[in-house]
């Protein structure tokens, strides 16, 4: 088997007395789109944050493209995996122009031609270079989420972690962002790990999905299993029934 782009083994995360993630293991193949589904507090976002190094107290093994998260310098790791957050309003510096926000990771990493690459990225995400000189407050929610995606792509990572990337957006804008993400995945050969509480979005976006409840894995399904209602666990059935309302 080819080496997974992301592998998580026996991951446990504790916040004080609370166990937020309880012995979770899964792997994402190169080019695959993998969904993490569950209610708030089930631990799905914490997994993404742990992979990014935003959580202190964890045990287990996390590997991205063969690099161990615990042993790889942050800067090197950042070139392999980047994250897009739920709230496009909160993820951009309000007093930095869009171009500066997108170029920042490249500046930190001392990459050449940051400016030309910024314009390229703005074209890639469908905004165009004229947006480089605007401020976040001049953009709509959907445009801001596009900027957040461009910034995440600045270091050309192979893996994107997407935490509820469209749940703060109108459905018409959601469709545009989902189409954009699918196009980027194809064009750039990306892999996705997508956290969502929306089963329809996950069924549309993901090849496989993992259902979580109370910090534990309930079951892992392929898209076909979900669509054929080939479910093993009662919780998944309840979740599906509630989603169908």
């Amino acid at each position, binding site marked *: 088997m080819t080496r997974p782009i992301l592998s998580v083994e026996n991951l446990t995360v504790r916040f004080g007395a609370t166990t937020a993630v309880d012995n979770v293991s899964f792997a994402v193949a190169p080019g695959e789109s993998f969904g993490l589904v569950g*209610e708030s507090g089930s631990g799905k976002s914490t997994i993404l944050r742990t992979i990014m190094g935003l959580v202190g107290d964890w045990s287990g093994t996390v590997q991205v493209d063969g690099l161990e998260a615990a042993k790889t310098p942050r800067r090197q790791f950042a070139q392999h995996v980047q994250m897009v957050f739920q709230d496009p309003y909160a993820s951009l510096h309000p007093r930095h122009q869009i171009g500066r926000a997108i170029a920042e990771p490249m500046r930190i990493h001392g990459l050449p031609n940051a400016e030309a690459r910024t314009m390229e990225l703005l074209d890639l995400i469908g905004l165009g270079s004229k947006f480089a000189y605007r401020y976040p407050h001049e953009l709509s*929610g959907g445009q801001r989420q596009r900027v957040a995606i461009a910034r995440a792509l600045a270091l050309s990572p192979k893996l994107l972690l997407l935490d509820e990337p469209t749940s703060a957006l109108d*459905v*018409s804008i*959601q469709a545009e962002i989902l*189409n954009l993400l699918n*196009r980027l995945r194809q064009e750039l050969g990306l892999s996705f790990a997508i956290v969502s509480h929306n089963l329809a979005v996950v069924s549309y976006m993901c090849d496989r999905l993992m259902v979580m409840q109370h910090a534990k894995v309930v079951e892992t399904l392929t898209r076909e299993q*979900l669509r054929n209602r080939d479910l093993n666990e009662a919780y998944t059935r309840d979740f599906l029934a509630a989603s169908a309302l």
Partner: protein
Amino acid sequence: MTRPLVEIQNLRIAFPTEDGSLHEAVRGVSFTLGREKLGMVGESGSGKSLSGRALLGVLPDYARMQADVLRFDDIDLLEAPRGTRRKLRGGRMGMILQDPKFSLNPVMRVGEQIVEAIRIGDRRISRDAARRTTLDILATMHIRDPEQVFDRYPHELSGGMGQRVMIAMMVVREPDLLIADEPTSALDVTVQLQVLSILDELVTRRQMGLIFISHDLQLVSRFCDRVLVMYAGQIVETLVAGRLNEARHPYTRGLLACLPTIDGPLEPLAILQRQADWATQL
């Protein structure tokens, strides 16, 4: 025929812009509401929340509002003095907002907040009586251990629990009209079901009028009796619940087409092609 609970005719709300002109956010909205569940659907900025706020009288000071008719029961809200409108709010009209995190006082036990709401309405109700009423209403919200929840602070509650506390606070004085602005958007699907069934129970049992504001067309059409679809400050279409597939307006149809579904095709999603004339037909 009995008089409707709410009547709005030609409601217009405008905001002054930086260059001194006015931006019209609500442009001639008219509808009536009986003892029913009325949905208002549209994207951010379509004017759905503003219409609800105008009814309650909680628009910001700089908003310019006008209407031919703005009536609640037999009260002309356009003529009613501020004091009258203040008494209506919380008493006969209530509003539930999207996020309990921002709507509950973070440094006050949630039970005390409901007691306060009860006693603002009627000072003659004793603390003890108000406490008993609070425990009862919490139980009505399907909260298993009201005594325990009474003593919690908002940050100690989950989103769904917080939302139920907020609904309890709004319905404890048995309003005739409840405006719910995205009441379930911040909640998980399973909790959303519970909150909706509580709202449904209230409308049916207490004969309330409910305005349910949401961006989720499918949810609203399943839950409400009638749905108003708003676009750019106007009502573009009124639908009978459960008959989404009969929607005629290209905007409504566009909104439905761009939703992914669990069993839907994997081709690129349809993108809403906005037509200039959707916004100009006055």
